[in-house]
């Protein structure tokens, strides 16, 4: 999916009803807990057909919050293609039940086929299904399952003993529940049944730059060509003083030797740099690797010096057009919004951006879209703050 022109969200997380026609650059602002990140996650989920590992916590019910409380299922529709999310087996739509059951059977077979003899699998499946329910993501060609215990706290020891009884294991366990959770349970309980889709599918080039990725991901150091591109970009825009080279392990700085005929180079490892520098490199890296796809960014202003915001905004406008990248970002920054509204000069640039303020009114989240023209009016003429007060 190269470009999303229509996004419809129903009952996903805190969002009950959200309809939006994305542009090339989409900025979501608003108070905390108004669904900004949820929109980025919805895009990520709809395109991949599954969720990032970090969302899923086995042995808890947190995954059930993926569907708005009190609702049976969530729907995310992108370009008229629907993805359904169900919080339990009981809520699966009738016409999808056969597909879900068949995919669950296949997923369980894949997990157990080398571990359990065929004649005992049916009892193991029964034990598993008696103890676990699933949140499910049903997309065009795939179903992903996210198991959670039907009852909490989950009695891991009892489950392990029942499992041992079925498979006839001679092993008895003296381990506590906590130990079991992290070790042998992984071998006997399918904790995530992601089915057939991978998040690395090249046809779905969606990259999610979370706060964590921004400062922890060092993927950019793995590719020499990419490092060259980042290095050139930094030099062109004078973003880092005295930068000589970016190498796979170090940032090479030009050091003043005190002599005219000699230049010293000082290597400093990436992990010795601050969050701001790593966030800058990762933001550029994610933008470049999103060519022809979608880039999701959480609060790009974080860790960046305000002076870099102008460069960031210019880069987003130029590169998103050049590399055909659709950008969705969240922000709390007045400066960033101001830069984004200031930048467009041509009609094409004006049309390329939409700022949406999300607002919780009487418990319901509403979205208010600001074109560049209206955003400028609010900021410059009315001197108001379109992020909300």
């Amino acid at each position, binding site marked *: 999916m190269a470009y999303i022109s229509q996004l419809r969200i129903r009952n996903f997380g805190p969002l009950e009803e959200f309809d939006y026609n994305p542009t090339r650059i989409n900025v979501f602002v608003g108070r905390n807990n108004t669904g900004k990140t949820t929109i980025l996650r919805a895009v990520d989920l709809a395109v991949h057909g599954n969720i990032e590992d970090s969302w899923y916590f086995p042995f808890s019910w947190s995954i059930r919050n993926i569907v708005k409380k009190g609702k049976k299922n969530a729907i995310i529709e992108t370009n008229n293609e629907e993805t359904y999310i169900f919080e339990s087996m009981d809520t699966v739509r009738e016409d999808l039940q056969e597909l879900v059951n068949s995919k669950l059977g296949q997923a369980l077979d894949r997990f157990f086929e080398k571990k359990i003899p065929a004649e005992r699998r049916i009892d193991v499946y029964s034990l598993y299904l008696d103890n676990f329910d699933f949140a499910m993501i049903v997309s065009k060609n795939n179903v992903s399952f996210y198991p959670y215990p039907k009852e909490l706290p989950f009695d891991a020891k009892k489950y392990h003993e029942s499992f041992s009884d079925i498979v006839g294991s001679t092993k008895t366990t003296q381990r506590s529940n906590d130990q079991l959770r992290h070790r042998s349970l992984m071998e006997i309980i399918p904790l995530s049944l992601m089915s057939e889709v991978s998040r690395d599918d090249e046809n779905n080039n969606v990259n999610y730059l979370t706060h964590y990725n921004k400062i922890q991901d060092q993927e950019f150091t793995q590719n020499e060509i990419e490092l060259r591109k980042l290095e050139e970009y930094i030099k062109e825009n004078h973003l880092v003083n005295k930068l000589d080279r970016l190498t796979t392990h170090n940032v090479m700085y030009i050091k003043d030797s005190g002599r005219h005929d000699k230049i010293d180079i000082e290597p400093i490892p990436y992990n010795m740099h601050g969050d701001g520098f790593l966030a800058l490199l990762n933001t550029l890296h994610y933008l470049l690797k999103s060519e022809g796809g979608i880039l999701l960014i959480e609060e790009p202003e974080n860790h960046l010096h305000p002076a870099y915001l102008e460069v960031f905004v210019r880069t987003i406008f130029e590169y998103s057009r050049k590399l055909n990248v659709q950008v969705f970002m969240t922000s709390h920054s007045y400066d960033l919004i101001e830069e984004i509204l200031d930048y467009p000069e041509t009609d094409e640039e004006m049309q390329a951006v939409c700022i949406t303020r999300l607002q919780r009114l009487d418990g319901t989240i509403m979205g208010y879209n600001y074109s560049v023209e209206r955003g400028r009016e609010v900021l410059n003429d*009315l001197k108001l703050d379109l992020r909300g007060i």
Partner: protein
Amino acid sequence: MVEPSKKVVILCEGQHECFLVQKLLEGQPFEYASKKKIQDTPRDGEIKIIKEFHRPRNNSKFLIKDEDGKDKCIKTFCELYTNCTLYNFVVILDADRKRTLRKFRKTAKYITKMDILDKIEDYKFVTKDEKKHPVFFISPSLEGIVKDTTNENVDNGKQDEQKRKLEKFLEESNAPWIDPLYSALTSARSF
């Protein structure tokens, strides 16, 4: 202790409406954000003024804002109506033979995507949400009714002179909107 959620922001079309409200609120702590004060505040000036007013350590119960014209007053209210759910608002505009009401409805539809006003009287409307923010339309205009009542031109003279004329107007006038306006200003805090 002042409960922040009960503070009132009064959006006035112009300076005269602000003076009138100040007179009505005499003896009560209020803040006045004049046109000049708003213009001189850098960047997100209006929000800065509102935020400072909102802080718990600020003991003023009312913020009177000069919106410097009908258009800006309506637009500001409509933006704040969806943007800012923490305050009670009172809006004071000249009726201008219902032209202002039509402008208000059109602007509200554009900004909030809703028809937000319910009519109470010819001169008083309230928003449809549970807060029922009152919007007053003074007919034909504050300047016009002052002239009709006192035979004085409130546009003439220095600020003190203008305030005196408005005071005289309040003493002599029996315009039907004065008591409801006073009541809306003072009872708004108890919503």
